[in-house]
């Protein structure tokens, strides 16, 4: 039971992802918590029509957002440079100012991909709902804005709310610090972000980790994702230059 989840290489761990698959990519945006090696392995498959679900996306390369200054960033833009994406669902796909322009904005301008922009709290709650067996919930966020278009509205206690539905995916690529051989994951600091929720909301969850240890080596009080949610684990090389 213990070692079936461990994959030898990033490329092995993603090779059953197909044209048209929906893929959650964890982290917040920025380098901390981002499954950078899994993203590169996915990009190298050369697939088409992917549906990508992320939070902040494509901003790091354009502005250095959330990366150490001495490292050239990698972000969701890698899938757009190569026209692999049919649609991205995210909360923050373009920079605040009009320039510099991100790969995602370029693709959108060229009509190569669809961009669906969702308030961050609604996005994470929709992902959480999918993992938690909740098909839909009401939220106050977005009422009276274009986010409310074509959505059911309803009053509770005289305040208006929107009906939002669960959001799941075929695959989740996530990042953690350490995993034990059961797939129990330990995170560091703000690198949790979207990773724990996405782990629960996909058919196959693949975790990129710095280290794989024996059960019991991670303090059970510090496990952020129970192994029940993790299908595959891949260890990074020692001293990977990416954070």
């Amino acid at each position, binding site marked *: 039971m213990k070692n079936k989840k461990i994959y030898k290489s990033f490329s092995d761990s993603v090779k059953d992802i197909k044209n048209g698959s929906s893929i959650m990519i964890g982290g917040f945006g920025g380098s901390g918590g981002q499954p950078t090696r899994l993203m590169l392995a996915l990009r190298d498959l050369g697939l088409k029509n992917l549906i990508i679900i992320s939070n902040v996306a494509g901003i790091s390369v354009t502005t250095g957002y959330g990366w150490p200054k001495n490292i050239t960033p990698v972000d969701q833009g890698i899938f757009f440079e190569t026209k692999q994406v049919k649609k991205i669902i995210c909360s923050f796909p373009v920079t605040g100012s009009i320039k510099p322009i991100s790969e995602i904005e370029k693709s959108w301008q060229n009509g190569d991909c669809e961009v669906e922009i969702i308030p961050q709290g609604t996005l994470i709650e929709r992902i959480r709902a999918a993992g938690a067996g909740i098909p839909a919930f009401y939220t106050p966020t977005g009422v009276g804005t*274009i986010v409310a278009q074509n959505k059911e509205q309803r009053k509770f206690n005289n305040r208006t709310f929107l009906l939002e539905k669960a959001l799941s995916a075929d695959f989740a690529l996530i990042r953690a610090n350490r995993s034990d051989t059961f797939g129990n994951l330990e995170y560091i600091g703000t690198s*949790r972000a979207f990773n724990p929720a996405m782990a629960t909301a996909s058919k196959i969850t693949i975790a990129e980790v710095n280290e794989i240890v024996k059960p019991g080596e991670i303090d059970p009080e510090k496990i952020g994702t129970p192994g029940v949610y993790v299908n595959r684990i891949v260890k990074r090389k020692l001293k990977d230059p990416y954070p």
Partner: protein
Amino acid sequence: MKNLSFNNDPAPRLSRNDIARKAAQFLPNSSIVNLGIGIPSLCANYLPSNIEVLYHAETGLLGYKDLYEGEKGNPNIMDAGGNFPIEVPGMVFFDSIESFNMIRGGHINITVLGAFQVSGTGDLSNWMIPSRGIGSIGGAMDLAENTPTVIVAMEHTTSTNIPKIVEQCTYPLTSKNCVNLIVTDVAVIEVKYYEKQKSKLILKEKASGWNISEVQKITNVELFEE
């Protein structure tokens, strides 16, 4: 970045740093605060010395104070602006589910946000320039809609002196009837709600050398004094 300045101005407008310094005066002691990007993020540099607050970042962080500068910092401790806060005792980490439960549940006491436009009824537009056709919502809608007190910190006009306080927002909305206080480079204005979705703008403070009629000239909504 220079202060905005126009021929008809009776006196200089405040700098972005001075807008932040002014806005920071409205942060209550012991409050939980979320600062938006841009001018709001500068408030942290000007918190009055007798005031202690806990900063919340959407990334899953509560209790930071200062940011690392230059090459320093840990990518695993990041704020929503992509900066790396300095670790302090009592700091807490959590995932995005919890981070937005705090916001949506109204547990963040006060937020300072930037704006493209604010309406006379406290509507806020701060996420998309219509001509661009695409924008980033991030946590702005959750914060604006659900935080009990919303301060807008912005320049009073655009760089071509077009008023940003307007009867009706023409930019896509972030949240309706959410703004409580507008701090600009020429004035501090309270959005006083006297009935559901109805409000008056009360001019609380003017920049040095400015009077109400001069502020009114660059404000598209009638201003009142108490």
